[in-house]
């Protein structure tokens, strides 16, 4: 993909993050640098302990680096206060978690509206319209008023993705978003991510599963806190083809 004229969404430069555990300093990230442009679908891979969770936390403005720079959508996150980072998360980032993290006993539309409730610039009327639009984007237009406990895992993850999209973020961060799902449902979620990518969304998908690299446009592999490979994949495989080929389970 030609990225020369695209906007830089994420730029990390010599990112380091140290933790002090029991008097010993653990170096979770040792000088990580890369740039992600608008419209990329990046998978970040690594085994546990590779530092991918730490990287995700920093990219998601939940954590700050010990040293190095992180520029999100042209703004340096490093020197932001706690509250400024919260506002940044609210306006620029969409999170998708492995275990969905929906509010229990709450309808899809209310779950999706949640980030907008923390944004005082958005009026109640807009809120509902935006939530419906986001749910339509993930194919749940007929599940608007279902409660989270009345839906399957795949549907719940779609609600979570709609919640990540509702504030029109510059980046969607998915953390093992298919980790809790069976193969068929995993692929349906992957299909959704590819569709979102095709519509221009910038996505970072953190996973330990190497098979998923084939479906993204770029793959970054972390090991021991360092980037060991950063490969652009010019022809991502179609998740939809695989999904269609999978046998439909009839029990």
């Amino acid at each position, binding site marked *: 993909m030609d990225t020369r004229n695209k906007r830089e969404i994420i730029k990390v430069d010599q990112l380091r993050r140290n933790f002090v555990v029991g008097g010993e300093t653990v170096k979770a990230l040792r000088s990580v640098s890369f740039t992600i442009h608008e419209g990329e679908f990046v998978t970040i891979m690594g085994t546990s302990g590779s530092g991918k969770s730490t990287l995700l*936390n920093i990219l*998601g403005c*939940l*954590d700050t680096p010990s040293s190095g720079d992180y520029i999100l959508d042209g703004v340096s996150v490093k020197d932001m206060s*706690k*509250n400024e980072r*919260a*506002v940044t*998360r*609210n*306006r620029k980032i969409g*999170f998708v*978690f492995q275990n969905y*993290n929906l*509010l*229990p*006993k*709450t309808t899809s539309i*209310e779950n999706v509206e*949640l*980030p907008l*409730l*923390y*944004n*005082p610039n958005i009026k109640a009327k807009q809120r509902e319209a935006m939530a419906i639009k986001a749910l339509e984007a993930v194919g749940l237009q007929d599940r608007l008023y279902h409660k989270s406990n009345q839906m399957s895992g795949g549907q719940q993850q779609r609600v979570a993705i709609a*919640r990540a999209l509702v*504030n029109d973020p510059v980046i969607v961060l998915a953390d093992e978003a298919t980790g809790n799902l069976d193969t068929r449902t995993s692929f349906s979620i992957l299909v959704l991510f590819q569709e979102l990518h095709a519509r221009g969304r910038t996505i970072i998908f953190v996973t330990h599963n190497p098979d998923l690299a084939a479906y993204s446009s770029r793959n970054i592999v972390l090991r021991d806190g360092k980037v060991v490979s950063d490969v652009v994949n010019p022809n991502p495989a179609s998740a939809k083809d695989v999904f269609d080929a999978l046998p439909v389970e009839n029990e």
Partner: protein
Amino acid sequence: MNLGNLLKIALKALNNNKMRCFLTMLGIIIGVASVITMLAIGQGSKNSIKAQISEMGSNMIMIHPGNMQRGGVRQSSDDMQTLEVADYEAIKENAKYISAISPSVNSGGQFINGNNNYPSTIYGITPDYLDIRKVKVKEGDIFDEQDIKTAAKVCLLGKTVVDNLFPEGENPIGRVVRFNKIPLTVIGVLEEKGTNSMGMDQDDVVLAPYTTIMKRVLAIDYIQGLFASALDEAHTDEAIDEITGILRERHKLNEEADDDFEIRSQQELSQMMNSTSDMMTVLLACIAGISLLVGGIGIMNIMYVSVTERTREIGLRMSIGARGIDILSQFLIEAVIISVTGGIIGVVIGALASWLVNMVAHWPVYIQVYSVVLSFAVCTVTGVFFGWYPAKKAANLDPIEAIRYE
């Protein structure tokens, strides 16, 4: 973050946790309701004691002859003859702190009406006595000044005497009953008073002009005592001083001499009874206070557990952009809603329970405004304070740890 959104978030969160919400409220409800009920019972009994005392005439003053020594021998007050009708007239004429006064002479004896007879006591008095002792005439009328002047042979009967002399239920008014062979025309019947707090039958009484008793029954020229009413309870002491002054002057007692009479008021009795009921109120307030405390601990407990239980929810809210202050506000609003709602329900249940105590156990109850305000305030403050602490804890959570909390 505006308040409307916060309120919406808090209400949704409460709605999602109805059971926890209810349990938290229960602590407040029980605390508030028990404080209100117990204080209502305490105050009710205090009021009823007060009413009983004022029924007997809380501003009543009794004057008896007394403390007269003759050659070093103390005498029984019955034999003393130091009070005279002239004393009564002097007090009536000169005392400013007295609203009513009546001499008192009495005699026990057998009352006879045809075949029925009954032993009772006849009191010789003036019509003022009715005001002093809070006695009312049910039927007929009290005698007048003319009857007192002429020592008229008339009387008023208490209910117990009526029941025993007229067992068939005849109207006693206009009938003649005999007391120690003296015929007395019944001109009135007294309203029933029941037994007093000492268990004495207050209806076992016959009233007649004091002159009638002095001249026709006892044949004496002195009076056995005086009943008076102070203007009100607060002026009892002044009234006593005034009467003492008048009597000492009339009896020509010099500085060193002891009083040859004795004055008593109802205040001593009323103080004693009040201190008993005060003790009960304090006891009930202690119990109520403990239940408030237990309620508060319950609130704290559930609020605290709820933060732990909702760690993931807090983490999620933070990761989608809630600031620490937003989380703190949400938890505080939840605590306020729970506390205030619980407080209001507690007030209602406390009022109902008080009413029930009154209906079922027939205990007097009286709900005071201060007990409602106090218990409501204490519970609300407890709820909000114990809600604030875990809320603060929640607001300071690290979103990374919170979102991954299992």
